């Protein structure tokens, strides 16, 4: 339904915002661009919307080539038949809810009869559960309601593609959770092709059919949420999607059963999942999610993948407690059940579940960032 190829966009100031991006979104698919601030997500989306003119590349929606640097075509925004939800919602404050939603039908080429208009607007509003507020002036809405108006306005004319730029990021934490669920259900129900932009990994994982992790204007990894989280292909993805313990290591024995192998790490030898083709002696990196580490007291029955350490810091997070545990010279992040809490300075044992110890080839750009476990 939507195809973007070799997209390049450099801003006037010389900022290379997008450096050759390719992706395709199938009909009805929910596709997310996920990446840190400034990585070019919004730029890509705006190119698709026709609000920014790319320097190179091609963009097709359905069968229309809406942009092509070679063909020198560039269809203006208002002819692309897309819907867009903006980060600021961009609800027009001088209109009522009804008029906001009716606007695309009234003032674009797709005019409809008056009675038909009313029906369609009310249908769109009931879709987002706002039918009761149709006549309220837009400024008198809460954030979540405004967000829903923005959605209804983008959906009412059944655009071929729905573009969403961090639609939830201006909402309260609580409301964000609620709207996330609502949005997912709505999009599922309508089976609408969506391109979503966010820097919030939880959002991306929860909503998407497929996620593209972006950094510095390029796509680093593309895949289903599960793939992205559980099998990051490099440290950037691993780090960006959730918290991570990251160890340097060397493969000691690559011949264990079911793709498992033994790796020497600064916290000891760990049985890990090895990638295909990993050889003994390879320098690798090991990615272990905090929830892949069990924390307990006393001596374990099984000594495999178990190390000892001291609790440095414990953060109660409601549904879990996050610990920073010192193991030798390393700080390990551990996430565990919130019902019990290990006090600071307590001596504890950590068990690294072997199948959650992921080994990835060493890449050059693996910067150690501040919120990951790592060297003290």
């Amino acid at each position: 339904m939507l195809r973007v190829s070799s997209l390049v966009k450099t801003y006037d100031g010389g900022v290379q915002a997008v450096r050759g991006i390719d992706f395709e979104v199938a009909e009805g698919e929910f596709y997310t661009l996920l990446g840190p601030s400034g990585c070019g997500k919004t730029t890509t989306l705006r190119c698709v919307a026709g609000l920014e003119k790319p320097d190179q590349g091609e963009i097709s929606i359905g069968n229309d080539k809406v942009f092509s640097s070679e063909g020198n075509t560039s269809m203006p925004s208002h002819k692309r038949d897309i819907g867009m939800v903006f980060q600021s919602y961009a609800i027009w404050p001088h209109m009522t809810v009804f008029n906001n939603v009716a606007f695309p039908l009234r003032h674009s080429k797709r005019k409809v009869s008056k009675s038909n208009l009313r029906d369609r607007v009310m249908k769109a509003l009931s879709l987002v559960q706002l039918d009761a507020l149709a006549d309220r002036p837009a400024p008198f809405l809460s954030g979540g309601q405004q967000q829903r108006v923005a959605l209804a306005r983008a959906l009412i004319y059944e655009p071929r593609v729905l573009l969403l730029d961090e639609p939830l990021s201006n909402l309260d934490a609580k409301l964000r959770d609620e709207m996330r669920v609502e949005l997912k259900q709505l999009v599922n129900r309508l089976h609408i092709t969506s391109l979503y932009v966010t820097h919030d990994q939880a959002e991306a994982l929860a909503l998407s059919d497929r996620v593209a992790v972006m950094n510095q204007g390029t796509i680093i990894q593309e895949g289903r949420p599960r793939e992205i989280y559980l099998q990051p292909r490099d440290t950037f993805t691993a780090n960006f999607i959730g918290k991570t313990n990251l160890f340097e290591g060397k493969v000691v024995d690559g011949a264990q059963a079911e793709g498992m192998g033994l790796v020497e790490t600064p916290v000891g030898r760990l049985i890990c999942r090895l990638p295909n083709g990993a050889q003994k002696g390879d320098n690798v990196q090991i990615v272990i999610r905090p929830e892949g580490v069990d924390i307990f007291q006393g001596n374990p029955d099984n000594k495999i993948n178990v190390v000892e350490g001291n609790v440095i810091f414990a953060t109660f997070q409601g549904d879990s407690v996050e610990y920073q545990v010192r193991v030798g010279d390393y700080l390990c992040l551990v996430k565990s059940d919130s019902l019990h809490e290990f006090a600071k300075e307590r001596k504890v044992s950590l068990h690294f579940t072997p199948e959650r110890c992921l080994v990835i080839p060493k890449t050059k750009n693996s910067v150690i960032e501040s919120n990951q476990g790592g060297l003290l």
Partner: protein
Amino acid sequence: MTAATDVQGLSTGNGLLAGYLEKINVSRVVFVLVMAVLAYLMLGPLLFLLWDSFHPGWEIGDETAFTLSSYIKAYTDKRFVEMLVNTTIFGLGATAFSVGMGSIFAWLVERTNMPFRNVTYALLFAPIAIPGLVFAISYILLLSPDIGVLNKILMVIFSLEEAPFTVYSMTGLIFVEGLRLTPGSFLMMAAVLKSMDPSLEEAGYTTGAGILQTARLITAPLMLPGILAAFIYYFITVIESFEIPAIIALPMGLQLLTTKIFFATHTTTQMPQYSVAAAISVVFILASAGLVYLYTLSTKHSERYTTITGKGYRPRIIDLGKWRYAAVGFTVIFFSFSVIFPLLVLIWGSLLPYLQPPSLEALEFATFDSYLKVGNIPKFGLAMKNTLFVTFTVATGTMLLSSLAAWFVVRGRIRGGRIMDLLAFLPHAIPSIVVAIGLIIFYVKMHRSLPIYGSIWIIIIGLLTKRISYGSRIMIGAMFQLHKELEEASEVCGVGWLKTFFLVTLRLLIPAFVNGWLYSALLSIALFTIPVMLYTPKSIVFSVLIWNLWENAKVQEACVVGVLMVVITFTLVFVGQYFASRARVQQTLT
């Protein structure tokens, strides 16, 4: 699916015209149109000015070769340096005064809980409508060392030998001119303040800085780009104006550049020398271009100063505590000078056969006759009708054009936005008299193809040319505050650029639009140089009527019409404020 068919139509080559029309980028077309209109409005007078300055007498059909004589005459005048120095002092002083006052009032009205803020807002407009001549003379009646009432009173109270003040001084001149320009700079500064996140000031208080310290160290520097813009605009206004200097600077023999222009163009003992006036105007134009360039340099990063709007932004009112009364006192004193005194003089003048210092004796002559006979003033009805037409057309035209230009300056991804900015600003630097002659020449020559010479339209064009600079300043400021996603949301959902501009952009900028509209309207009513030069019996307007009444010594009638203009002004201001505040209420809630 309309888009799909369009593209097919294009690719198959069917309906070439339809395809071509589809391809036209509306915003680009409008850009070219606006650019053309601005260039048309501005290049006419500008080219005339330049050409005439090298070809003296060209305008009246003298066959003249290229010569630098006008420049030599203007710049080798033995008092030229004196003029330049005086003009600069006058310009800086009056601008500093009016922008300073404008900022103080903007702060008081927008940020504090001073009582009567709404009245203040409305009253600030009043000085614009009082005819400049009357405004200036009222200061002679007030502050002249010989007959100034205020001086007299002070001399009695403090038993002084000599009058404590004199209006005949650079200070007096600066004071009167500054008073007159305060309303406009107030509007500019209020817009700047409105766009500033109040938590920046609050951060000052919580770190231990007091109200005044915060105002000085935080509020003022943050407003700097806005202050600078207003400063430049008013500096040019001041050095180009002659209304007040004619009554206050001329008598004391104070030399300004505009004095020279006045003598060159308003002489009856020889032919007017527009070329000399033009040569001097080049100073104004260079000053404008230079200042605008400086402004661009100094505010390169001003977009970074713009507010982080959205959540957490709410207008905050500073509790002045006891200082509220001091603020009201200050306001009352200011208004006494800027509005009440001149207005009283105007009313006083409308009751008496001629202007005289207020006294009980004079009261004997007082009569309301002239009010009753106002309908007898020849052409009064016609002038009223024309004035309303001119005012509405000029104000609306100015603001529409300014809004479009502002869009391209602020949003346009089209190169040339900056040029458009300059095009909109430069006419400001061309003295009205030069604009008027330029227009006469242009439209006399064009008369066969475009017969607007002698019609009301030439007046409208003249006023429009001069007003566009203010309108565009106001709208550019406002446009910076409008989140562009509001417009993009409309385009994305299938609404074309032009419709979006009117349905969304302009609609949301109504408060600024109304302010700019009001100011342009009031100035179009009040300023007379251009109408007096361009009018015909059919296109007479109030300002001309007043001028002619004045010339015929019908001072009383002139004052009556002046009072009527003030009444119209207040009506406009109140109606305008009503609409603006309604639109504002809706918007501050976002």
